[in-house]
């Protein structure tokens, strides 16, 4: 089990450092690239938890789509890409820091209180639970209604985006 512990801590420290990089970076493109590290770390954590499908979805959607969309957005809106001290800063950052630390403290205390001392026991059953086939079966058996509704939602979002983006 100690290998997993080591892997967890290496990933966790890297994610936390990259997350600080996201908010501290003075260059918006660097911030987006730091975000890739955070999201990839989250994907690796899912693999440690034997949730392979969620891990790959994390890679495909967050790194593959969302961050690329960020970069496209930066490109298309012609946001300043050079280092611009102060342009990305917010006057309320110290207030934000206090609130963030408070929320962090409360959540850590409560999560430790609720889940502390519980252990995940790795077994073949747990691994098969995270398999793509299992998730797929669940989507089309148990969650078929939300699945169908989401497809209509995506259609509507597509139509709406075309209307907003179209020149007239």
């Amino acid at each position, binding site marked *: 089990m100690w290998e997993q512990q080591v892997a967890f801590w290496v990933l966790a420290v890297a994610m936390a450092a990259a997350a600080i990089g996201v908010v501290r970076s003075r260059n918006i493109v660097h911030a987006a690239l730091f975000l890739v590290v955070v999201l990839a770390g989250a994907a690796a954590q899912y693999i440690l938890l034997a949730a392979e499908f969620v891990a790959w979805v994390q890679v495909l959607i967050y790194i593959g789509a969302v961050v690329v969309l960020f970069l496209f957005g930066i490109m298309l809106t012609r946001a300043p890409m050079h280092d611009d001290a102060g342009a990305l800063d917010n006057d309320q950052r110290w207030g934000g820091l206090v609130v963030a630390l408070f929320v962090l403290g409360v959540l850590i205390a*409560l999560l430790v209180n609720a889940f502390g001392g519980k252990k995940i026991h790795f077994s073949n059953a747990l691994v098969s639970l995270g398999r793509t086939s299992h998730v797929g079966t669940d989507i089309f058996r148990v969650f*078929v*209604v939300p699945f169908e*509704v*989401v497809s209509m*939602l995506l*259609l509507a979002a597509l139509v*709406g985006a075309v209307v*907003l983006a179209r020149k007239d």
Partner: protein
Amino acid sequence: MNPHVDFHAFAPEIVLTVTIVAVLIADLFTDDSKLPARIAALGVLGSLVPVLTLAVDGQTRSLFGGAFVVDPFSLVLTGFFLVAGYVTLLLSFDYIGEGDYYQGEFYVLLLTSLLGMIVISSARDLISIFVALETITIPTFVLAGWRKHDTKSNEASLKYFLIGVLSSAVMLYGMSLVFGLANSTVLVDIHKYASGHTPALFAVAVFLTLVGFAFKVSAVPFHFWAPDTYEGAPTPVTAFLSVASKAGGFVALLTIVRLGFFPSGNSWQPILWVLAAASMTLGNLAALRQTNIVRMLAYSSIAQGGFILVPLAVAGDVRGNAAWQAVVIYILIYGAMNLGAFAAVIAAARRTRSAEISRLAGFGRTNPAIAVMFSVFLFSLAGIPPLAGWFAKFVMFRAVFDANTTVAVVLGVIAAVNSVIAFFYYSGVVRRLWFDEPAAGVELSSPRLPVGLSAAMGLMTAVILVVGVYPQFFARLGEIAFQRG
């Protein structure tokens, strides 16, 4: 092994989905600008047919391990949403047509939002509720910004979008904690979990989930997007947002509290109490100072949302279903009143070309028919008998007295004071309509009102008068909703 799917239970959703696709295709292949609108209206009415056949059948259908349930409650609310959606379509026909906006696309988005609402009436697990709630909201982000060249409309859309996304994230985080603790997303299982001993984290999870809903139903202190969005969005969309989409949030809130969090009363009752008291008070006080009729109705709908939250906040101390019934009855009546009020605003704005209250001066002399109906809607919102609004207030106060605890009575007193404050600004507009000298520039003999708009106003007036005089009709619907099928 394939799961048994009861297609009759999904029939309203299926009809509406087919309608959405048909509208999209019709818009693609014809130049007839009226055809998509006709298909949309017909489809919404068509979806009511399976609702009726399911109601006649009367059987409770529970699918997917209790995640999707068709019972009297879901049928009553599905019916309400479809009627509200139809009335919104009536309001939109000419507004959207004359502005030369994208008509077909408008109806596709409106109907998709409506689809989310009828799914939410039957959804009984966190994932379905969340997906349905997003299906309600995401199309309305775009609808609020439909007047692309109007900066106010852009502002409305952007504010609504940013706040909506933020609230979804907060709610989803809360829901993920609930799932982590209860090990299930189905509300029945969460109910079982909440009956036992729960750690403090559960209270925080409930808090975050309810905060998300508070944004959706624009309860104070999470309301600040509503007045700007309501003012900037096209008025039929505002009517839809303030009635159907808000009711969608309340239905989900009612379901999740009643079937999920209920046993753990300490975790949700104080939050709802504060939201109810703050929404009523701040909504009404802000409404007093408005000079724009749409902004006034926005604040008034925040206050009305507070009134709807009152029975929910005291539900833990009410025996039987009286509190839940009060919520459903209030939603039904509020829908009729507010849709009517916005229809009247659209009709009046066609004559005065403005949404300022001062421009409505003497409107009763120049356009008596619109002014009479406008007054009916406003007095009904104020809760004056014999208009339907009094019955909504009555069932709310009855729930408070059924609860009969100190906190409930304090909330009842706050509600009573607010009913009086609300009367001032509603009657202020009515006084403007009838007793002030007409303002210059109001067209006396404007072209006839569109049929759809007149029909919507007439229909809502009729509902308000009939329910006001014969409240047993909606009271019975409220009872049926919570009968065991």
